[in-house]
Structure formats: C-alpha cells, structure tokens
C-alpha cells in the first residue's frame, strides 16, 4: 500500500500534464522514478502493459490514472493543471497528509543526494578552520582513502592521455593548441585549471608527479557553493589572503572587484557533493582564456541553460549534469577529446562496459536508430532519418549552430598583431559594436562568432596532433593543422561531423620550422604579457620546452578542429532536409555521398541529354501543333 501510494504520488501530476501534451515532463519524472525506486517503476510497467497493451493512448490512460486516484481518495489538486511538474523532491503537502500514516516516516533530506546519505556538514573533520587547502584534502582523504590516488591517475591530474588511434602520448603538455598554444613555461598561470595545488610562488612550478596526495584539489570539482575559486599565478591555489587582481584578468580571477578575498574553506568543504555543470564549467567553459573562447559548444550559458539551448542540460527540464553522459568511475571521466568514438557500432553503447572504450556518445542512450514515428513525424520520415544515421553523426543535425547561449566564441586569433599599447601605456583594448574584444595588446586581434554554423567533415575519431617540437607542415593554403582529423566516406569508421575550426596566426621558428612555445604569462621580464617582446618570450618558452631556438621567428597560419557535441537543440530546431539537400547547402563540400537535390551529384551526361531531349520534344510538339493549326485554318478559309 505504501509503495503504491508513493508511485501514484510520483506519477499522477505528470500524467495530468501529459493530457495537456507535455510529454517531456512525463519522461523527466518517469526517469526520476526509475532511478529512485526500480521496484515501483517495474510495478508501474506491469500494470501499464497489462491494461493497455501497446497503446498508452494518452487520454485513456490518463483517465484511468485519474479514476485510480479518485479511488484512493486523493485530493483533486494533484490533478489540476497547476500540479507541480517535479513532485519527487517536494511532494504536494495535501497529498502527504491524506493517506494513512506510513509505519516509518519517509526520510527526506534535501541537502544531500539520493546515493550518498551523508551530511558532510556534520563531519568533525570538516569543521575547520583550515589554513591551507591541503588540510581540506587531508580531511577528505581520511574517509575517501583512495580518492587522491584515483585522481592522480586521471588526465585531470597528469594532463596526459593516450591516443589509441595514433599510438601517441597526448595531452596539454604534449601538443600545441591554437589559443594559448602551450602551458609549458606558463604553468603557474595555467594550473588555475589543474586539479592540484602547487607552489604559490609565481616563479616556481612543481611538476605534478612530484606532488603528494594532499595536493589534489577536491573542492574545485565538488564545491556546491559556487564560491570556490582557484587563483592564477599561484599554482592553482585558492586565495588564502586578500590578493590583487591583475588588470584586465578579472574573468580568470572570477571577480569584478580589483581583489579577491580569502576563502572560507570549511564552509565549502561541508557542502561538497557530486560535481555540477558549474564546477566542470569553471574550467571547461573558460578554456582559452575566457568564457566560451575555446570550444564553441561549451560556455557559461550552460550553467543554467534553457530547453532551446540544450535539451539534456535544460535547467527546468532534464537538468543533466555533465557526468550523466560523461559517466564516471573511480574519478575517471569518460568522453575526452583525445579518444573520440566517431561512429559507435553497437546499438546500446552502455556506459561503463569495458569493451565499449571510454567515449561518451549519443548512441549510449539513443541507440543507432533513434527516430520514431510520432505526431510530428511519419513512419517513412522516421525511417529515412534513421537511414541518415549511417553516415551522419547525431550532432550534425541536432546541433544546428554552436555558441547559441548568448556568449560568443573565439573563431580567429592573430598573435602577429599583438603588442600595441594605448596612449597611457597600458595594453591597447579595442571592442566592436557588440562589446566583443577584437584586440588586446597582450594577445593580438580576435574574431568572434555567435550562433555559428559548424563546418562539416568526414571524421573517424582520429586526430593527429602536432607534438611540441614538431616541424610545421603547411597545407596548400599555407595553413598548419595542429590536430588534423582523419575520415573518409569509405572507411566504415567515419561519419559526417560538425566542427568548430579555430584559426590563428602564431609564431614559429623560421629556421627550424618548429612551432614556437612561448612564455606568455608571468610577472617576470621574459613573459610576453609583461614586455611584449616575442624574442624573449619565445626564447624562454623554447628553453622550458627543451627545444632549440634559432632566434628568428615568423608567424604562420594554424587551424584546430573542435568536434561539436554540446548545445543539442530541441528536435523541432534540428536541421531540415533542404539545409543539406540543395545546392550550396551545409554539406556542399562533402564527398562520397549521393544527395538528392545537390546538383554536383547529378550525372552530367544524363542531365544534358535528358534536358535536351525534353526541350526538343517540347519544341517538336509545339511546331507540329502550330503547323496543324495553320494548315487547318487555311483549309477552312
């Protein structure tokens, strides 16, 4: 009886919404029920199948639930149109009072999750006060004894990953990028996004492998207060005293003020929970030096996204955390850029299965043939869409544009123009009419994009990264690809994927042809952001990277591929047929597929003969008819 009651309470408001056509809500609540109580949902399944085989004719089913509800004597309020949409966390009070009192009161503790019924605020170890962040980690490790070891074996700590396709070690310190280029020689700044604590001396970097377990930063991922902040130039430590913000760098310090205040670590430690979009985003949304700069499909608009922006992370809907897709085990997080499965073969790619590799894919949940007939989609249309999934990645149609959350992303960066100063001696800053920063003396000039249409390429998941020390190999357009992608219509491993291609014009050694590593960030006289001297900055950077530098440098165009996988739009906003099935459509440049509607796929001879014969036939019958009419008129007269 108690179980049944719980089930009805959970489901009925959602079902009454279903009568209004709000299917999404039903799914949300149903998923929650599944998670919370497998038994209940199974009981629900049995009933629903026995009473309504194959049907679930929504109105009929809803009426049935209504009747059941009445029979149990529940208040009508639960069935009204204003019924709360997510009643599990907070069931309507009227409902709680009406049924017979349960034998044991249900324990609901909103502050903690369903899976971890601990209230960290009551732990003695976390009462503080903490005078260093390492003390917090020690407290964490006193219970979570293996957490640091786990962390220290992940890419979040090592910044190293194995590229199984090219059999190479990759990672931030191994390869180049087209934004800040390399963390080498800039570690004390770049470790603002490392899950560890280093030296607070801006000049002294302690390599990760030399650090002890208590140097793992638990709080940056597990903070729930949105107040924990790692501070640049001090090796990834939080502020333990009042620290002045370097002018122009407020975004990286996470404050509008000219200083940051010391943090109350005990308060943060007492509230820890699983990571949220905010905690993942505090690094991943700000890659490349600012909000939305790097990825294009990841920016702070995903902290609280609308349904339009991302159907899964929709804060008022499914509200997925990152790890809902990037499933996690032992602090290892699946689905990294360095190991992409571009064309998963199995239908249900279950997360956590050993043989599945470590990619986060749409297919994990949606399978290979995800389109079904519904009131908007006919059966042949659904079938035709499923046919497309052979060649086309889900993201291609379902992420019609990236940078849709109101934050622009950096499309183009030109280091060659850096170094200009304003009349007052500070680095020159230019903003365009939208308020976007198009020039900054310490970095160069930029182009930004919002609602950007991706570029499409065949992609099999293989990226060949330029390793630090590699010589440039410009393509026929003089562009160096720092992570050239592979893929073809015939290899059976590729799909057509959407990409952000970020472009730069960055320094290289003109004598050796090696792409430069340079010292951008620091308070010393070698750092570019202090003295605007490429010679010094490259010398220092190359020295730190243990590479020779001839003393001659130039600038070369570079490009970098960023597969687009976030900001999944509602299905009504997915690409329509003609966006590709037309001349000049989005896939105009894609080879190896026959696309009706795209004239480059026509057989030119067939078209020429066909159109010619058609024209001749028209001309013939017109002429024949004309002569008939003229002669007929003459005969008549």
């Amino acid at each position, binding site marked *: 009886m108690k179980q049944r009651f719980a089930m009805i309470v959970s489901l009925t408001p959602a079902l009454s919404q279903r009568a209004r056509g709000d299917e999404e809500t039903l799914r949300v609540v149903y998923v929650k029920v599944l998670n919370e109580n497998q038994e209940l949902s199974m009981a629900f399944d049995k009933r629903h199948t026995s009473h309504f085989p194959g049907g679930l004719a929504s109105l009929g089913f809803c009426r049935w639930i209504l009747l059941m509800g009445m029979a149990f004597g529940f208040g009508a309020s639960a069935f009204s149109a204003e019924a709360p949409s997510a009643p599990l966390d907070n069931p309507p009070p009227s409902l709680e009072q009406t049924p017979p009192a349960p034998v044991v009161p249900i324990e609901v503790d909103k502050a903690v999750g369903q899976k971890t019924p601990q209230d960290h605020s009551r732990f003695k170890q976390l009462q503080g006060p903490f005078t260093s962040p390492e003390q917090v980690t020690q407290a964490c490790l006193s219970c979570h004894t293996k957490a640091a070891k786990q962390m220290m074996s992940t890419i979040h700590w090592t910044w190293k990953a194995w590229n199984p396709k090219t059999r190479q070690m990759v990672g931030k310190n191994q390869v180049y990028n087209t934004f800040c280029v390399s963390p080498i020689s800039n570690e004390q700044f770049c470790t603002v996004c490392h899950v560890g604590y280093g030296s607070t001396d801006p000049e002294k970097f302690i390599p990760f492998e030399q650090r002890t377990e208590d140097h793992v930063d638990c709080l940056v991922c597990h903070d729930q207060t949105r107040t924990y902040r790692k501070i640049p130039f001090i090796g990834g430590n939080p502020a333990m005293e009042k620290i002045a913000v370097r002018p122009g760098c407020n975004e990286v310090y996470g404050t509008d003020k000219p200083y940051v205040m010391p943090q109350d670590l005990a308060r943060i430690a007492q509230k820890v929970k699983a990571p949220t979009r905010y905690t993942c985003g505090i690094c991943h949304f700000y890659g490349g030096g600012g909000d939305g700069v790097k990825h294009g499909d990841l920016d702070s608009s995903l902290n609280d996204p609308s349904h339009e922006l991302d159907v899964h992370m929709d804060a008022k809907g499914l509200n997925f955390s990152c790890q809902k897709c990037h499933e996690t085990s032992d602090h290892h997080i699946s689905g990294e850029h360095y190991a992409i499965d571009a064309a998963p073969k199995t239908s249900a790619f279950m997360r956590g299965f050993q043989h599945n590799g470590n990619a986060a894919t749409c297919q994990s949940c949606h399978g290979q*043939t995800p389109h079904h007939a519904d009131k908007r989609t*006919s059966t*042949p*249309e659904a*079938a*035709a869409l*499923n*046919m497309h999934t*052979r060649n086309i990645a889900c993201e291609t149609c379902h992420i019609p544009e990236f940078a849709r959350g109101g934050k622009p992303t950096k499309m183009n960066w030109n280091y060659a123009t850096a170094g200009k100063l304003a009349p007052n001696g500070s680095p020159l800053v230019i903003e365009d009419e939208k308020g976007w920063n198009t020039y900054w003396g310490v970095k160069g000039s930029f182009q930004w994009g919002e609602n950007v249409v991706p570029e499409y390429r065949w992609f099999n998941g293989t990226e060949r990264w330029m390793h630090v020390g590699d010589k440039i190999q410009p393509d026929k357009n003089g562009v160096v690809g720092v992570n050239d992608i592979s893929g073809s219509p015939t290899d059976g491993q590729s799909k057509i994927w959407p990409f952000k291609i970020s472009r730069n014009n960055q320094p290289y050694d003109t004598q050796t042809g090696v792409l430069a590593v340079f010292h951008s960030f620091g308070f010393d006289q070698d750092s570019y952001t202090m003295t605007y001297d490429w010679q010094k900055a490259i010398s220092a950077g190359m020295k730190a990277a243990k590479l020779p530098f001839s003393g001659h440098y130039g600038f070369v165009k570079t490009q970098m591929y960023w597969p687009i996988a976030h900001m999944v739009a509602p299905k009504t906003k997915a690409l*329509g*047929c*003609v966006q590709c*099935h*037309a*001349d000049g459509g989005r896939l105009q440049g894609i080879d190896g*597929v*026959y696309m*009706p*509607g*795209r*004239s480059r*796929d*026509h*057989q030119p001879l*067939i*078209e020429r*003969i*066909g*159109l010619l*014969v*058609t024209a001749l*036939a*028209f001309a013939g*019958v017109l002429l*024949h*008819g004309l*002569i*008939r009419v003229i*002669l*007929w008129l003459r*005969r008549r007269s």
Partner: protein
Amino acid sequence: MSTHRIYLFKRFERFWHWSQAALVITMLVTGFEIHGYLGGFDFKSAVLVHGYAAWALVTLWVFAIFWHFTTGEWRQYIPTFQKIFLVARHYAWGIFRGEAHPYHQTPQHKHNPLQRLAYLWLKLMINPLIWLSGAFLLIFSYDWIRTMPFGLTLADMAWTHTAAAYMMLLFFIAHVYLATTGHTPLTYIKAMITGWEDSYDGPQAGDSSPSKNA
C-alpha cells in the same frame, strides 16, 4: 463518310489510365523537385509524396496487370509493323492536310502500330527501369537495405532512376500531344473519359491507302 461509335475503353481501363496519369504527373513533379529543379515544394513533402505515390502506383499496377492478363488485353501491345509507314507518314504529312488516320481502331486492336511500339517501350523499358531503380531507392530510404544490388552504388541507382525519369517525361510530352491528334483535338480525350469513340470510317479524298479492312 459514315460515323459510328465504338466502345474502346472499359471502365477499369479508364480508371486505371487516369489514376495512373495523376500519379505519374505527381511523381514527375515531386521527382524533379527532389532532383533540385523545381521550387514551390519543400523537400520533405516532395519525398514523402513521391514515396506515397509510388506505393499507390504499385497497388494500381497489381490490379492493372491482373486485369490485362485475365481479360487478354495484354495482346493490344503485341507489336506489328503492318502499315507502320503509313501511320508514320500520316503524322509527318497527312495530318497537316486533314487526312483521316490510316489506322482503324477496333476494340480488339485499338492501338496503331506506332502506339503499340511506344507503349511496349514504356512497359518493357521505361517502367521496369524506373520501377526497379525507384524501388531500391525507396527501400534504401526506409533503411531496409544498406547497399545497392548488382554491385551498383547509390549514385548509379539514382542516375538510372533519373535517366528513366527523363524517358518518362519524354513519353508524357509526346503522349499528351498525340492525344490531341484525333479527328478533333478532343476526340481521343473524350474517348478516354467516356470509353466511346466516334469512328470516322472511310478514306479522305487524296488518301490512297487501303482501308476499311480492320
């Protein structure tokens, strides 16, 4: 010159003809829309309508083939070269002078030799080509098959379909025009609607062809 009416086209035949005409026109329009040549439709609707019309035409054909074989009407399409030059001469010359058609229709032989050849070409060449290629493309679009048969690529199959579609278009243009070449421009069309055709027996002056033998 005497006239009498003959019943050329039975009720099913007329139904078959006109519904097939409507479906073929629909498929030509949606097909060339999908091909990228016509505006005014959206691509998705064009594809769906093209597919639905294809299924309707298949159904119609099942009945039509049954009808042809059970009634023996298929014999209408047995080719003959008898009087073929006379008929050709008529369309190239006599028709302009108002001469009567050299071929005299009967319910047993309602198609003139040129017509028979044209319909045979339609039924043995264009239709199988367009149907086979179309069927493979359709079930490919339904995700029922993943590759094309006979070692063909998707493009090969699509090109075959396109070539057959141009042939169908050519047939359509010629057919519609020739439908106006009866005794009056509407003679044949009326016959196709009512089934009855006014037969104008007897040669015109100046026509030396042997006639009245049908």
